[in-house]
């Protein structure tokens, strides 16, 4: 799977999300994603990750072997830099 495809799927599933996906190993099945969205506001980490998994749907079960996730609100993202 192409990292760009994953970016598109996450962005489609989570409104206003800024998404950056990297292929972790170059093998097309281990990915690393940073997702920044105001919709994470007031949500715990489990809920945030579940939103991302939902956006990926069946691809998460079938094509993606592993996805390392960082889920941040815009404010948290600002603080990181």
């Amino acid at each position, binding site marked *: 799977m192409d990292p760009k495809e994953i970016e598109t799927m996450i962005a489609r599933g989570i409104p206003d999300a800024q998404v950056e996906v990297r292929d972790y190993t170059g093998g097309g099945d281990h990915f690393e994603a940073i997702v920044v969205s105001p919709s994470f506001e007031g949500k715990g*980490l489990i809920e945030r*990750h579940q939103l991302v998994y939902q956006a990926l749907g069946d691809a998460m*079960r079938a094509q993606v072997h592993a*996805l*390392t996730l*960082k889920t941040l609100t815009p404010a948290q993202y600002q603080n990181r830099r």
Partner: protein
Amino acid sequence: MADMIEKIESAVKENKVMIFMKGNRSFPQCGFSAATVAIFEELGVPFATADVLSDPELRDAIKRYSNWPTIPQVYIDGKFVGGCDIIRELHETGELEPLVKAALAATSAARG
């Protein structure tokens, strides 16, 4: 399926820290499982593990149980806390240890 859910429920109830993983604590079969186990080893707290690779039915059931598509999965005090990334993040922010200690303290208080 129902049996499997019961098995999961009793495992997370009986073990204050329960990790569903690939392999076991001595021989993790996946980098994410290994990293998760390493964090709890570092904290030096008691924990139990179940190997989903040796039990495909468990592997399927645990994903439904928590509505979470990936392994490992960590349960503290019967509650799903997260996978590798979340545990790592909670450990980095210093939130994990108090969470575990509180769960363990609750047990000994109940027994005492």
